[in-house]
């Protein structure tokens, strides 16, 4: 009977929908996280950015960048070899919940240590102290600091505080053009639609490294963003292990090496001294 056919078709479709949702989200450029590699040993799941050149950018299957190198080093110090690491994309919005739900074991994804975040997650590190800086076109020599942005057009990614730091907190009268993300900003800067892009200098340098001849870092940094390794709340012991690993990473020169390989081609004057570590809670 037709009615029954339609009803059962609907039922079947509902089952299909549930099955589809259960499959979850396909990894764009990911390594198929979530399932074990089947090598028998323990694995560690680490959340990094997948869309941040120089820090964590997906390169056809595995992420690469400074954050990724740091995370690999730390994991090795914790006793995991590189092939025991499972990478997962940790977008800014879901970092806390990933840690709280145990989706990941740790996060190294331009994750600034703040008091608000410390209420819900633990931090080891910082492994690097980034600062806010400005990126301009290579030929632009007018802009040498935030004060020069008066009357210029500044790009900010939507939801970011960086541009407001300049226009509101510093009271500089720059026009804002809002873009969806920083790669859109770089596109706008490259075309001369905006005069400058501002955010963490590491992020800027990562983009600049893709086309080192087109962009110039102002290297007049202000403020500070202390990148920590995010851990689930109550991981004091692991936090201490990670802090040791971070200290060792800076002492044996690995950190500088990583920074060099990520940003060496740019004029970004990155920090070369060991950051001052916070005590583990």
């Amino acid at each position: 009977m037709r009615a029954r056919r339609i009803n059962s078709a609907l039922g079947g479709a509902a089952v299909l929908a549930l099955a589809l949702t259960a499959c979850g989200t396909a990894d764009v450029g990911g390594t198929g996280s979530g399932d074990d590699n089947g090598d028998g040993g323990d694995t560690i799941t680490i959340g990094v950015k997948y869309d941040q050149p120089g820090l964590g950018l997906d390169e056809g299957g595995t992420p690469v960048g400074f954050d990724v190198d740091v995370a690999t080093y730390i994991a090795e110090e914790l006793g995991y070899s590189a092939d025991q690491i499972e990478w997962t994309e940790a977008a800014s919005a879901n970092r806390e919940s990933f840690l709280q739900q145990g989706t990941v074991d740790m996060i190294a994804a331009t994750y600034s240590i703040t008091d608000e975040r410390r209420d819900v997650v633990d931090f080891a590190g910082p492994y690097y102290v980034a600062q806010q800086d400005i990126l301009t076109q290579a030929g632009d020599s007018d802009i040498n600091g935030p004060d020069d942005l008066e009357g210029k057009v500044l790009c900010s990614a939507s939801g970011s505080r960086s541009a407001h730091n300049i226009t509101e907190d510093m009271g500089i009268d720059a026009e804002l053009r809002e873009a969806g993300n920083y790669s859109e900003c770089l596109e706008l800067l490259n075309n001369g639609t905006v005069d400058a892009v501002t955010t963490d200098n590491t992020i800027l340098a990562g983009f600049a490294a893709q086309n080192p001849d087109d962009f110039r870092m102002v290297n007049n940094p202000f403020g500070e963003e202390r990148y920590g390794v995010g851990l689930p709340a109550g991981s004091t012991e692991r936090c201490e292990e990670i802090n040791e690993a971070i200290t060792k990473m800076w002492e044996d020169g690995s950190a500088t090496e990583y920074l060099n390989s990520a940003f060496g081609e740019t004029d970004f004057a990155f920090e070369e001294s060991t950051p001052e570590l916070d005590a583990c809670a």
Partner: protein
Amino acid sequence: MSAQTVLFDVPGPRARVRNTLYTVLTVFLALIGTAVLYLGFNRTLSERESPLFSAQTWAVNPQGQWAADKWEPFLRPDTWTGYVIPGLQNTLTAALTASVLAVVFGLVFGVGRLSEHWWIRVPSGAIVEFFRGIPLLMLIFFTMALPIVAWQLFDIPTGTFQVSALVAVVTGLTLYNGSVLAEVFRAGINAVPPGQGEAAQSIGMTRTQTLWTILIPQAVTSMMPAIVAQLVVLLKDSALGYIIAFPELLRSFTLIATRESNVIPAAIICALIYIVINVSLSRVAIWLERRNSGRGRSSARPAAANGAPAPVREGAGGLPTPSGTAAEPGVGDTATESRTEEEPGDGDDPGPGKGPGGSGT
């Protein structure tokens, strides 16, 4: 044949000259437009060093968007396996899940609006009108913010549950398109001649039985083209997931564009993929419409529920337009609306039939 010659006579010598003139003019304008786009994206329009009509200006600029290495990524298999296909998979997952849920939502609330009990009818109507009247993007933002709402209202600590981007997209698409479909179903049920329902009841069927065995099957069949048209809207709207970093097709292409700095090639190929999918879906809608009209005995004629831009009335003979079948659902996104906006004359529901509807993005 007649399709082209309805609005004008067979061109005589002067008209032919005029038409040729128009053609030449159009070609000229189109060439200028294409040239501006070509040179602009070639970066030789505004910042060129050579005169406009020199080979250097027109050669493919390696810095511009037409350079071969900007397109080369799309020839590499890993671009497709690493980005495009997973993105497409996510788009289809979100769209399919939301389609099914939206149909269920639409049936529940479409039927709910026709209920005899006011305490079902009124809330159903309110829900449908509410979700039809507000932008999809707001629904997605709000769904994403639900953990904060739970914290602010019920002191549930943030992080107790999270709303993934997929859930937010699917929820938004379901609520919005489900409300539109509810109106489609309602119009479809209303379009079934009342005699059928009366006949069913006179042979002792309950109202529920009548609804599920007589009315809904006919409504679904007659409204199939409108339903498919709405599903095309839904699929296209899933691209809004890009905004909340749901890794769907459009976001895959922005990731490619970030990596290869080839915005324009990425945008063009992305658009082509969407167009191919949506055009094929629309073809399904047209095929369904034809199949339906061929059957001829469907008593719930969509035209009856349609009112305004009805497909050609039987026998009356309308103006066929080029490329369109007369019975084509025609208005794409708005097909749904045209069907729902106008109440059939015998609609017994006093509720407002003309709420805010409309296609999504």
